[in-house]
């Protein structure tokens, strides 16, 4: 599968083994020397990260000139960020989709009305529950919150399953040396665009239920 990477892999070090400044356009995948894929081998990723970390760590450059120390710090920060992003499957997909098709902020700001209705209902119930003093009423609300919790958890699971499938389709297309299929990218953007609404609602529901315990 390494046929696609015929170019020389990126290296933080120049021919004399000195640290170079990393250009801004070098992405996380290139930096850590792993394939640009949705589903990647996290063990190999970890190995690459530690390997680089051992070579770049500022501790090794305490006596080096200031410019080199700064480059070591910068490089360490960059590989840390790259590793943190790529090791998390969701953060990785968000990063990849944005690399491919621009920031998620450019998404539609008016999501499906049915989802929003459910979000407002759940959030309002959570708020009511938190200031509710009547015991019977509180019990009813608690039931509603638990039901909503189940509903939104299922939505989140559904998102993850869909993202896995789309990710596999993406990787398959990339392996054939094609570009990412626009339809797959569009679907992923739409799922990721709704993700924070679902997460925030789950957080509110959880907080409300926990505080009452």
């Amino acid at each position, binding site marked *: 599968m390494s046929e696609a990477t015929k170019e020389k892999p990126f290296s933080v070090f120049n021919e004399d083994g000195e640290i170079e400044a990393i250009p801004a356009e070098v992405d996380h995948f290139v930096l850590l020397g792993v394939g640009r894929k949705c589903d990647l081998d996290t063990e190999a990723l970890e190995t690459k990260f530690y390997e680089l970390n051992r070579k770049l760590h500022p501790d090794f450059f305490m006596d080096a000139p200031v410019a080199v120390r700064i480059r070591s710090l910068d490089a360490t920060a960059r590989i840390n960020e790259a590793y943190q992003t790529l090791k998390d499957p969701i953060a990785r997909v968000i990063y990849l989709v944005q690399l491919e098709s621009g920031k*998620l*902020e450019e*998404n*539609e*700001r*008016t*999501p499906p*009305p049915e989802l*929003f209705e459910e*979000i*407002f209902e759940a*959030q*309002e119930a959570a708020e009511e529950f938190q200031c509710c003093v009547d015991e019977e009423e509180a019990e009813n609300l608690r039931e509603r919150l638990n039901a909503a919790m189940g509903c939104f958890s299922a939505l989140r699971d559904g998102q993850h399953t869909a993202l896995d499938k789309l990710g596999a389709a993406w990787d398959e297309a990339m392996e054939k040396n094609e570009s990412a299929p626009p339809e797959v990218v569009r679907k992923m953007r739409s799922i*990721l*665009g*709704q*993700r*924070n*609404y*679902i*997460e*925030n609602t789950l957080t*509110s529901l959880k907080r409300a239920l926990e505080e009452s315990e």
Partner: protein
Amino acid sequence: MAYSDKVVDHYNNPRNVGSLDKADQTVGTGIVGAPECGDVMKLQIKVDDGGLIEDAKFKTFGCGSAIASSSLATEWLKGKTVDEAEEIKNTQIVEELNLPPVKIHCSVLAEDAIKTALNDFREKNGMPVVERKGHH
């Protein structure tokens, strides 16, 4: 990052929190969200016979700046005509609340909510809707 005094004031004492009857002919509703942070905002206006906005309500689930932006928006909406309300810009909200660059999207969200609510009212009452232009 610290919130400005005005943001804190609106956050602690939000004006006009609540809901109006969505089905009411004289009520316009705008529901919008910010996908990058997951904040959701509902803003409603009620227009009287003379074409003035007599009441405005909001419900926002999100950060302090989003709550403050929508709270301020409802204050500004009251007493304006629908066309005057169209002129409210997110930059005015940024200025009034002293929002930092990372929170500008909260004011954009409030402007979006206002315009969606105004168009909902126009649509319900057979008035031509106003096309949205791109914004920053």
